[in-house]
């Protein structure tokens, strides 16, 4: 049980850097609303506002990984 507890502790200390590509009209507005509602999300989520996520190309996601992101998500 102790071991399991230690593992859980290790998991908790891992803070992945996440790049979020968000559409200005929906996902970014939702994040804005979340802010207005005082909902919190980890500071390791870095948001990139786009006029439209239809513009996202594979290279944008790869560049985020190259820059050190552990995960990338596109919301739009």
């Amino acid at each position: 049980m102790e071991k399991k507890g230690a593992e859980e502790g290790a998991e908790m200390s891992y803070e992945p850097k996440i790049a979020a590509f968000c559409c200005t009209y929906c996902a970014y507005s939702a994040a804005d609303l979340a802010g207005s509602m005082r909902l919190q999300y980890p500071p390791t989520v870095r948001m990139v506002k786009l006029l439209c996520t239809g513009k996202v190309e594979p290279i944008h996601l790869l560049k985020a990984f190259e820059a050190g992101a552990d995960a990338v998500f596109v919301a739009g």
Partner: protein
Amino acid sequence: MIVGQRKPFDEIKSYVDGCQRILVLGCGTCVAVCMAGGEKEVQILASQLRIAFKEEGKDVQVDEETILRQCDREYFDTLKDRVDKYDVVISMACGAGVQLAAELFPHRVVVPALNTTFIGIAEKEGVWSEKCRACSNCLLAETGGICPITICPKGLVNGPCGGTNHGKCEVDKNKDCAWTLIYRRLEGQGRLEKIREIHPPKNYKVQTTPATIWHAAYREEEA
């Protein structure tokens, strides 16, 4: 146009493992149209390589460049002074482009990133199909503009064979029988008598390998 497909990443990476400076060189014509070796694909491959080397803890320089065509010498002029900086050039052109790059930079290793597949057309976005086998002896005037050398797995110049099956091919039932397509095309044009003409065996003698062509206006240079 020439249609190609990118090789698996691991195969491409195996060509350049151990190199310190890599140039990924795209071609802006056919392989750019078939989304295999143009500027966007150069960016993606270069980025994948940088990520892979970084994960291995290796400090490798991966640069990107795309020229308009790798099958014409003049487009390489801008690269001449720069190529010596690199250990290896990954050419994302068709086989012709890779070979010209290798010929122009004989002191540098040039490796291919694509498998060149065929001469074809775009059926719709993201789908291409083979239309020509470059046989140097075009029959399309006789066959209603449908090539039996390419479309028929047997390359029959007189067809259909006994394996035609309700418009499909006995070799692959998912594929159309070339000679049924030809029949229907000629029928639609009111030229069905053309299918009764017996074509002599194909003259493979004209299909020399490797072929060279001189334009009539340049024949004097040949002499």
